[in-house]
């Protein structure tokens, strides 16, 4: 019974983190939220008696993927609409010059 309740709580938290990752405009927060999904998923795998998969999920999903995404964000832009804003500003400057 307690495992059933824990499973439902973990699934709800995972869905909440996934919705947050989509909704959030700050890409760094979104990546951290998707790492949290992997963390809860690995706990869920342990409850479902698949410890082999849980180890893989914990190492790859939580650590490696998150860090590679963070490096990618560090080399590009952090906010979702930052690039569009920059392009708009450039266009405005160009039209003002003309």
């Amino acid at each position, binding site marked *: 019974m307690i495992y059933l309740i824990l499973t439902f709580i973990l699934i709800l938290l995972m869905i909440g983190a996934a919705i947050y990752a989509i909704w959030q405009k700050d890409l760094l927060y979104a990546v951290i939220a998707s790492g949290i999904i992997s963390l809860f998923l690995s706990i869920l795998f342990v409850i479902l008696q698949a*410890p*082999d998969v849980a*180890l893989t999920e914990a190492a790859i999903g939580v650590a490696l993927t998150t860090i590679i995404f963070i490096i990618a964000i560090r080399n590009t832009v952090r906010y979702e609409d930052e690039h569009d804003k920059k392009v708009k500003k450039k266009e405005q400057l160009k039209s003002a010059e003309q």
Partner: protein
Amino acid sequence: MKKAIILISLTILGVYLIDIFTGIGFGTAHFASGVKDAYLIGSKETLKVSNVVTSIVVNFRGFDTLGEVTVLFLASMALGGILYKKRHDVGERSVLFPSTRIVMSGAKLLFPSIVLLGAYVFIHGHLSPGGGFQGGTIIATGFLLMLITYRNYSVSHQRLSYIESSAGIIFIGIGLAGYFINGSFLSNVLPAGKLNDLFSGGVIGIIYVAVGFKVAAELTGIIYTVLHEKD
């Protein structure tokens, strides 16, 4: 005209897919027969391995694991071919912020224990949950911690490729030994030993150590290449 052709071909595909899915029969006694018993009994009786998942992954379906490792090798090679540059100054990279003294001391303290945990996971792959792939990723996580904490921590690419190649050669060599002695690729050539013993399961332990080294070297190489991509 174009849309009509797409619709017709999608309809044909859908009809065939529905036909296949109705033929499977979910929930019926599908698992009553088949190779299930051979795996469950064989891994305990003849191979003496307590972790059934490991015995299926490495021994009964060892060829699939070889393919998996090859895919990972190709991915890491392609990434290195695109991103790796021979000359980069390690000291001046600015991918991440400089870390504080607390993080540096903590990373130094944690790194050996993370590597030890990874080695434990892949050496005991046939006794406890985990195996070569899991242990290798844990070791790569330790190297990742060191690489993002110390700005001038460097890993020798040549040494990584030596480790990777020799691990792959050991894997294929064991497979070929099985082929020449027993007649089938990756079959067990060593004595099976006792159940729940460290030296049990024949070739499974050796293959998992090789896979662990290979995966750790590949993932460390991938992280190192990605971290140094900007300079």
